[in-house]
């Protein structure tokens, strides 16, 4: 099977500063690939190379079967791109913008009309399409930007931080639309993000980039498993020694540490172990609170780079199980 995107030894320097450093990656057709990293990691530079706005300093990138440096025109015909900032003209209406996009991609009037009908439903903009873009909300602008990227039916869609700056409702809608495009049209999607949940929710595979280098790659589950354990935190005031002894015998528990009045129980599968751990503790000590902390992509990122990456929402992956005595 031919890859939709193939990158080999990609390097991009700006005035001696290396923004992308020896990146290698393969994205299969029909895959959603999440490119995760903090601001300045090299995500957008990589995307700008892959969508022909920049040439690589070294290395080679092939998108939809064509070399981005040698055949940029052929690549442009086969890709759709929604850049980090919704690149729209506020004075045009949504319809005017989409029609112009269609004309520049060589579509006939009939084809443009047909695609407009389809896209209006796909990105759920509806009647607002006839309004000037300057009147759109941030979410609508992002969806119109997405529609503009889809007018010509691209094989590969690049989304550069598609939900940055959006409120949670708009973000959820954008995720819904990305999933729908992939599921219903089999479109390959290369998605850059600095949000953990976004990569976790959408991507079949994730590449983590830091300082211009790809430091890890795999499915979200593989990446989480690769760095270790879930942690069950039990608050057992004054009964830590008895609790520690009781929990050690629970199948699946890999270790127990005492931190003040808390027991930190490490396990490979927190969801499966939390019940038996709670039962074992309740026999020897009153449990005031029990919390399951599953491994997140942030843990992966921290392990690989020594830095945290931001979450999309204040709500973290830590779940309070509400067990109290």
């Amino acid at each position: 099977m031919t890859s939709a995107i193939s990158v080999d030894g990609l390097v991009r320097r700006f005035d001696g500063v290396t923004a992308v450093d020896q990146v290698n990656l393969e994205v299969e057709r029909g895959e959603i690939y999440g490119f995760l990293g903090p601001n300045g990691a090299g995500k957008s530079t990589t995307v700008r190379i892959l969508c022909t706005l920049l040439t690589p300093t070294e290395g080679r990138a092939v998108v939809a079967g064509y070399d981005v440096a040698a055949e940029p025109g052929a690549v442009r015909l086969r890709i759709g791109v929604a850049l980090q900032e919704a690149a729209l003209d506020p004075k045009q209406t949504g319809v005017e913008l989409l029609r112009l996009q269609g004309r520049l991609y060589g579509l006939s009037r009939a084809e443009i009309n047909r695609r407009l009908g389809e896209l209006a439903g796909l990105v759920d903009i509806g009647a607002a399409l006839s309004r000037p873009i300057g009147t759109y909300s941030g979410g609508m602008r992002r969806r119109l930007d997405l529609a503009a990227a889809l007018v010509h039916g691209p094989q590969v869609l690049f989304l550069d931080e598609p939900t940055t700056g959006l409120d949670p409702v708009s973000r959820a809608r954008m995720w819904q639309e990305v999933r729908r495009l992939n599921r219903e049209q089999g479109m390959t999607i290369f998605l850059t993000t600095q949000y953990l949940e976004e990569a976790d929710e959408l991507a079949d595979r994730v590449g983590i980039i830091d300082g211009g280098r790809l430091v890890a790659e795999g499915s979200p589950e593989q990446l989480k498993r690769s760095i270790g354990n879930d942690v069950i935190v039990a608050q057992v005031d004054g009964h830590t020694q008895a609790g520690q002894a009781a929990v050690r015998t629970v199948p699946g528990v890999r270790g127990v540490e005492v931190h003040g009045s808390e027991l930190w129980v490490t396990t490979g599968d927190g969801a499966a172990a939390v019940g038996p751990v709670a039962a074992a503790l309740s026999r020897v000590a009153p449990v005031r609170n029990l919390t399951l902390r599953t491994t997140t992509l942030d843990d992966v990122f921290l392990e690989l780079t020594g830095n945290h990456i931001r979450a999309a929402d204040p709500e973290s992956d830590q779940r309070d199980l509400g067990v109290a005595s």
Partner: protein
Amino acid sequence: MTAISYPTETVQRPSRVEARPAHPLRDVVSIAGRSLRAVPRELETVIPPIFIAVFFFVINIGTLQRLTESHIQGFDITAFMLPTAILLGVTGVSRAGSLVLDIQNGYFDRLLLTPVRRLAILVGLMLADVAIACALMVPILGLALGLGVRIESGPVGAVAFLLLGCAWSLAFAGFGYAIALKTGNPAAVNSSFLLFFPFLFMTSSYVPRAQLTGWLGDVAGWNPVTYVLEGLRSLVTQGWQLAALGKALLAVAVVAVVSMSLCLAALRGRTRRG
């Protein structure tokens, strides 16, 4: 707590379309069409030039008519001032301001992501400029005719008059595009208007060149606008004067070569991917 609902209707399965490079002419017309559609929404870009042109046309006639027509035998100040008003109206009229906004808000990148030819973006904008310049000149010309000016070269001469004005407008617009593409800065584009002053005032805008004295007469001799004005005036007051028209076209060509060279170099720089 507010429930979030998503569209649940069955979305029409997308039809198969195949992107292909459009014909170059279609690229140009598409870009020009977008620019022209924007004009009614940005009247602030066309009203001031026409207001300034008409204002000075009327004021200058009122100020100078008695003085000039009583001292120079057969002199028609209204006909003389018409080319000055035209150049006041159309010099510096361009879509360079909107281009720089496109660069700033990322829409220019969106255009570069399409298969559109890079040159077609520029040519499309300039095609729109020509249409706008022509539209601005018609009411000024109409006002002059209403004030009794007679075009000695006839209706065809009037068309030639408009075309020469458009050609000058286009040649000068190249400077604005060069600055827009080079800097991506609206303030820099707006300041390009300053170029206009030496061009339009160190010349025979208000009195015939023979009346200019000293250094100003010498400068006017080197100023291409002098020859454009004299070419336009010849069509209005003398009929078909091929020598004057030839010099006017040569002056426009010289300015166009300089401005378009700068403009194309700036376009290459802006669209360079390396």
